[in-house]
């Protein structure tokens, strides 16, 4: 599904990530940890072809990302749900339309959108904020909305960059529950997070591998997690 082979990424002559080897198999659940600035966000960007590896190879749905056209990347992203750390939205559209945006751009609006949207907005506790514009939302609301937007298309893979960074523990657990249920339905999940408590809570429910980035390399985290 997503595979990195000897992948490396650097800029300005320096190397941020090197010798990255990882295969995200269908239905797997991974956490990615590491200190701030270690390259977790860069790693995720390599996974959804927002950045290209400076050496090595990254394949996305069996296609080498360095050889993918813009249309290929767009098509691949329609099969992925990505929660970005900065939770960017279209500020001129109400929240409900922002959450439905992946369906809109994929030409899957209408009945499918109506059905998924109301259920999902209820799930993330944003039903009452459907008509609010993104600048009116709190940080936590933006993160919940970003997660809802990432899963609305029922994607094969969900990549989330610090999805619980600005929300309370109770809501974090609810969102985790949603991701665990999606994983049980066969979705592949990769979450980059600092939140060790969240990882422990997940491991109590699902078989998750925990990876750590340190010194620009990917390692399997210790059993203490």
């Amino acid at each position, binding site marked *: 599904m997503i595979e990195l082979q000897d992948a490396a990424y650097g800029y300005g002559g320096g190397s941020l990530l090197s010798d990255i080897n990882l295969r995200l198999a269908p239905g797997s659940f991974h956490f990615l940890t590491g200190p701030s600035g270690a390259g977790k966000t860069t790693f995720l960007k390599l996974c959804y072809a927002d950045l290209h590896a400076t050496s090595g190879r990254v394949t996305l749905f069996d296609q080498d990302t360095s050889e993918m056209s813009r*249309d290929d990347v*767009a098509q691949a*992203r329609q099969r992925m749900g990505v929660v970005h750390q900065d939770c960017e939205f279209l500020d001129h559209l109400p929240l409900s339309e922002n959450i439905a945006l*992946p369906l809109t751009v994929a030409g899957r609006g209408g009945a499918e959108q109506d059905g998924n949207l109301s259920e999902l907005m209820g799930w993330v506790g944003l039903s009452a904020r459907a008509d609010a514009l993104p600048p009116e939302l709190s940080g936590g609301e933006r993160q919940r909305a970003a997660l809802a937007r990432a899963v609305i298309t029922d994607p094969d893979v969900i990549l989330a960059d610090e999805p619980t960074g600005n929300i309370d523990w109770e809501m974090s657990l609810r969102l985790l529950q949603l991701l665990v249920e999606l994983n049980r339905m066969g979705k592949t999940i990769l979450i980059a997070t600092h939140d060790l408590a969240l990882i422990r809570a997940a491991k109590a429910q699902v078989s998750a591998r925990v990876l750590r980035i340190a010194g620009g390399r990917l390692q399997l985290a210790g059993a203490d997690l």
Partner: protein
Amino acid sequence: MSALSGLLDILKGDAQADRVVPRRGHSVRLTLFTSGAMAFLAVFALALSLASGRLADRWSEALARSSTIRISAPAAQMEAQIWAVLEVLEQTPGVASARALSEEEQRDLLEPWFGPDLPLEDLPVPRLVEVIETAEGYDPDGLRLRLAAEAPGAVLDDHTRWRRPLVRAAERLRSLGWISLALILGSVAAMVTLAAQSALAANVKVIRVLRLVGARDHYIARAFVRRFTLRALTGATVGTALGMIAIALLPSAQEEGGFLTGLGFAGLHWLWPLTVPILSAITAFWATRAAAFKTLRSLP
């Protein structure tokens, strides 16, 4: 996205896709105003071109088939010379008809320069004979020789001298009208390109978000193309309507008014301005499409 399907998409529309690009921005007013103003000017350029075309045809046809014989003679000989000229003309092959202008007609011809109370009978004004040719025409050199023999005061003016530059001027004017139209459409394309580039640059964040959720560049470009095409169409429709009203309010064509009062549309020519909004929309479609794809290619 082929051009045809792109245009059909524009007409069909997609309410949801349209909303992904913010409607605000100075490019809205800029596009509407400029396409309206350009359409207004285009209507005048079209009117100029069509009117000068009609004029060129009219002058060309009318002057080609007529000529004038000017007779200068003492008053006592004038009538005899007129009769002599008419007799010569009657026997000349290629002359369809000939007649001497009456004093009233000559007074009418001179009135614009000398006023209505011209004492024509007291002035040594030459008499004029109007000659209408057949389609084959006559031999002007032969006629001049015969006139010199039969009526020494008669001078043939076959209009060739001043007909050619007039017709050439009218044809140039018609060409200038078409060139103006092309320049106006070029200006619309340039303006729409600049406005579209400005709108795309102001919406880099929107483009980034759309790409991250899986939007193809065609989808993003279409949202901008549709918006600018419809704005250009709206502006040009208003500009064309105002231009046509202004043309309709011009004084109607009259003989004594000459060229200026003939500036306008006649008959089916009134349908021509209706192509201006369509041409503006097509121009805006292509200009925005090119600008959008160029900008999208340049964004990471």
